[in-house]
């Protein structure tokens, strides 16, 4: 699975996710990536793209939950991302997500061994990581 989240200079957020799914999956299996609110979400507050065990991400409506805890609990972006990864993946599901906020912040979190990721902000910060 691959994904990208962006907030532009107008403060507008967007998210996109694309995948081949799981190796050896059944024909017709749908994962989290195309499900708005599960693998992908964007609103006025943030943009989110998820990856990992699709069935767990769907059950946890992971992407929408980042926006929801920002909206209803007033959490900041990194707090919201950490909260969702820590509390919404039941049954030991493994996943990761990247997110941006309309304030120009970027965040990521994962509970798997690693996540291929990169991020950059206008003030010059840039990071590429795996573990």
């Amino acid at each position: 699975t691959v994904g990208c989240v962006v907030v532009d200079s107008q403060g507008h957020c967007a998210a996109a996710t694309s995948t081949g799914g799981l190796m050896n999956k059944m024909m017709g299996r749908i994962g989290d990536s195309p499900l708005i609110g599960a693998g992908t979400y964007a609103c006025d507050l943030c943009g989110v793209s998820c990856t990992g065990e699709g069935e767990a991400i769907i059950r946890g409506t992971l992407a929408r939950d980042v926006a929801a805890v920002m909206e209803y609990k007033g959490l900041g972006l990194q707090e919201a991302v950490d909260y969702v990864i820590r509390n919404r993946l039941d049954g030991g599901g493994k996943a990761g997500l990247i997110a941006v906020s309309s304030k120009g912040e970027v965040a990521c979190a994962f509970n798997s061994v690693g996540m291929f990721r990169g991020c950059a902000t206008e003030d010059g910060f840039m990071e590429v990581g795996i573990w």
Partner: protein
Amino acid sequence: MGGWAIAVHGGAGVDPDLPRERQEEARNLLTRCLNIGISALRSSLPAIDVVELVVRELETDPLFNSGRGSALTEKATVEMEASIMDGPGRRCGAVSGITTVKNPVSLARLVMEKSPHSYLAFSGAEEFAKQQGVETVDNSYFITEDNLGMLKLAKEANSILFDYRIPLESCGAAVENPQLQMNGLPISVYAPE
């Protein structure tokens, strides 16, 4: 108002024993995609255009599990899916069961912008792709030797592997460590799938 920001990912199922050269390849691709997004943002492209542009690049490169290099079904074919969402107005588009469209994320965007729906799948999505004239290729374009090898190992292990690239020599580990879990359950639970 803060400035612009961008993040990309290439999947969360990373094999702990990923060889160093594979790690390097992944870092280079992620850096290249970040730079594509950064120069687009510096040219004041809107966020929705930038996410589509970057994901297209990731779909085209066979390294990660999307587009060319996608994971294979139990029948050794490729069925891809993608979605895109624009924060302002919460507009969105999604596709599933895509077998011939070179860049599924662009078809998802067309669903958002050129159809009255937000999600099209399988034959309906392929029909819409033809109407919209998006680039299509044979399903074999998406299949790589690496993934054929991994599918073979997944079948031998009677399991479903997350979307990680594991070198053939260590995939045997998936067979040896039966405690491999998925959704907190032994992976063998999914064997029937």
